[in-house]
């Protein structure tokens, strides 16, 4: 994709919050971040609190001026454009609905400031957007007469009605309860795709990010750790931090014994297992690595001593390979799945999540077990 096709381009963005009284306590909130977003894409900035994600969003909206770096919108440098002159619309975390105006007045607030749209067109647009968020009947209410989810929809309608070039979301769902959150994120995604508006979405909730994003940018301490599709960052995390932040992760320590056939022979607690490479990694013999096992790729079976015993239901998963021996210390039966915690000598505890638990047979805590995995879906990370 050529650079000119990009809608938002961020180049070498850095933001330092200077503490004038004590310069040593100045904070670098964003540290040399570069990023491009294609038209119509929804990109999520994901990371723990204090990672700089909201600062980047506020710089794009124009509420913060970067210490250095540039923001380009459709090829135009907008780094020093005032926020009210930018074609961006922000959905605030607390919605920021005008409490003295009705729903209708809130939604038409931005439209009324524009001279290029006729009043009839303004009315038609506002009606259309309100019906899209299902609030046509609530137009004359004041914001405090709405539920949290309805307020959220008004905030969304108020932003979309201006048909901005870019939609910005600042943790828009964090004030809603879990069930409504899941429903609203689907609605946001549907509306965004329907209008085809390029969007930047800030959240610290990884499942929210996975559910709605075209791409996810994972940030830590103001730097980009990894950017990729939800599938990429989940299955091929670039760092331990990403592996741990996106979903749950077991790391099994290993040493590269040999390189062969597009993969690696790894030495794990005296066993040798073969794991195929991703094509992008380049480990050499003697390197220390961690095998990333997601809990759903961690299988726990009784240790009968017989290696290569038939594994029920393993067909779909491909060949299951034993990796370490351990002792079962916790079993939590959750219905559709059973969660096991396994203690392995000289290792952090491993977590396994096995679906269809009765087909496998429930194991008793305290029993000696062997941990299996499917090498095809495992991922290797260089030990830090």
């Amino acid at each position, binding site marked *: 994709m050529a650079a000119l096709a990009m809608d938002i381009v961020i180049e070498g963005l850095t933001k330092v919050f200077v503490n004038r009284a004590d310069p040593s306590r100045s904070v670098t909130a964003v540290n040399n971040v570069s990023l491009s977003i294609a038209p119509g894409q929804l990109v999520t900035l994901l990371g723990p609190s204090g990672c700089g994600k909201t600062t980047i969003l506020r710089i794009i*909206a124009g509420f913060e001026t970067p210490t250095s770096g540039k923001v380009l919108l459709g090829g135009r440098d907008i780094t020093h454009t005032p926020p*009210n002159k930018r074609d961006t619309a*922000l959905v*605030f975390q607390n919605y*920021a609905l*005008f409490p003295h105006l009705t729903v209708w007045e809130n939604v038409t607030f931005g439209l009324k400031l524009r001279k290029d749209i006729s009043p009839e067109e303004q009315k038609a647009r506002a009606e259309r957007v309100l019906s899209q968020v299902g609030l046509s009947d609530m137009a004359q209410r004041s914001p405090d007469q709405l539920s949290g989810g309805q307020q959220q929809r008004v905030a969304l309608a108020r932003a979309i009605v*201006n048909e901005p070039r870019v939609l910005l979301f600042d943790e828009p769902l964090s004030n809603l309860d879990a069930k409504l959150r899941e429903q609203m994120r689907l609605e946001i995604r549907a509306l965004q795709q329907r209008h085809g508006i390029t969007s930047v979405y800030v959240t610290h909730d990884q499942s929210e990010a996975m559910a709605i994003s075209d791409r996810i940018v994972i940030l830590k301490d103001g730097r980009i750790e990894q950017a990729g599709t939800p599938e990429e960052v989940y299955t091929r995390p670039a760092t331990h931090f990403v592996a741990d932040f996106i979903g749950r992760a077991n790391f099994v320590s290993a040493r590269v014994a040999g390189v062969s056939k597009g993969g690696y022979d790894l030495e794990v607690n005296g066993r040798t297992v073969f794991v195929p490479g991703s094509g992008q990694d380049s480990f050499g013999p003697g390197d220390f690595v961690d095998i990333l096992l997601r809990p759903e790729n961690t299988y726990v079976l009784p240790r009968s001593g017989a290696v290569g015993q038939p594994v029920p239901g393993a067909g779909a998963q491909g060949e299951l390979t034993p990796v370490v021996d351990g002792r079962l210390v916790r079993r939590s039966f959750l219905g559709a799945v059973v969660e096991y915690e396994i203690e392995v000598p000289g290792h952090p505890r491993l977590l396994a999540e096995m679906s269809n638990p009765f087909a496998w047979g429930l194991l008793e805590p305290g029993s000696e077990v062997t941990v299996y995995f499917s090498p095809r879906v495992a991922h290797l990370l260089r030990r830090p």
Partner: protein
Amino acid sequence: MLAAWRRLVAEPPLFIAVLAVFALLALFVIYPIFKVVEVSLVQPDGSWSLATFRTIFSSWYMRAALTNTLVTALIVAVLATAIGFAFAFAVTRTNIPFKGLLNTIAILPVISPPFVWSVAIIMLFGRNGFVTSKLLGLHDFNIYGMHGLVFAQVVTFFPVAYMTLKGVLESLDNSLEEAALDLGASRWHVFRKVTLPLARPGLASAALIVFIESMADFGNPLILSGSHFPTLAVQAYLQVTGMFDLRGGAALAVALLVPSLVAFVVQKYWVSRRRYVTVTGKPTGRSYMAVSRGAKAFLIAVTGLVSLLVISFYVAIAVGAFARLWGFDHSFTWRNFEYVFGVGREAILDTLVIAVASTPVAGILGMVIAFLVVRQRFPGRSTMEFVSLLDYALPGTLIGIGYVLAFNTRPLALTGTFAIIALHFIFRYMPLGIQAGVASLQQIHPSIEEAAINLGASTAQTFRKVTLPLVAPAFFSGLVFSFVRAMTAVSGAIFLVSADWQLMTVQILSQVGSGRLGAAAAFSMVLLAIILLATGTIRLLLGRAFGAAIQQRL
């Protein structure tokens, strides 16, 4: 710093507003104060020295005025804060009956002229006082002096402490006290170890404000001190108007300025920063478990006694206004009111015109400054805030002398005009609007304004369409307070009145001075009636426009 300037220049309306406010503050706040200090330091031959201070404080009488003023202010600060706390605690932490009445009684003195109680005190406790001479038969009791002044000032200023402390106690979640009780602490222990320490910054703040008010008070000491108990504000006034010694008056005003300024800076930049913000989850219901029966009885006794005094003062004023000759002949008469509406008519009209003209200007200017200070970033922002509050914090005597000194020559020869009194009121009572505006702006989350800007509105459009409607209730309550203050002002204005422009408060003082208590009482009644009518009307009109929000604020 550079970035802040660049931003300011990029938005011309903002830039112009900031420049205009600074220019106004420099001319009408800084310059008069500077003039007083200058005059007190520059000698007739043009040299700078402390000679004026040496001369004026070489007399024991003026030295006594200095110590009297400071000692009185200290005593009043402690007593008024204690009574204010008792009222605030009773209203917020107990279920004693008549809480609404207590609240009203504790707020009423705020809307009364600041020295009306002195008139009432003379009626009740003076030489021919109803209580002292009629009830107790004391004929040689002398109310004039420190005890009389302290008495009057405590009653006048405890409401100031009450309002500060009520806010503090209301913001302290009483689940903290419940938690302490739950952990096994006794009620007395909870009070000493939880409530009191949490309220300490509020107590210090209230005491400092009362200290400043007492130092600056002019009306009460003029009426009640008597010649044996000189105070700075009164002596400065006598020096200027009686001896025509502007230099000596300026020196006394500077002596008054220094402790007030110190107290103000300590209050604003140290004490008020040490506020505790209680982090709470869901609000718990009000419960009044933390007060024992004995404590409650004590609170009822204290607040009841003070309330009784306040009520009796009002009754005395009301009866006095209709009595032929207070203390001797209490038969009913309209004579006092005939006098007030005859001789005093011009003063009533002048006062109204000046107050009505100056309060909207003060209110709007206050809102603009509050918006600039809270929401905008520009060089000199904190200086703007500090200077804009100065006129309210410093003694009126100083400001009044400053206006006389600053505006008696061309091109700003304003002495004796309507403008000089109006300007004085605008800059003296604008801080009430600023404080109301700052408080309400801080409650409005900045993201609401950001949302408007994000949707394409300019700073000016955002202020007009979003900020202004949201702070309107605060704006009008600030307006009401500045109106009341303008109606009841005396300490600075007394230097600025002229034959053409008279004020009711000055008239009341001169009636007391010439022994016409009945006329003074009638004047006070009229003043009170105007204030109640005006605030009541505004309340009614705004209540319809803004609902319950403003009702609570007023």
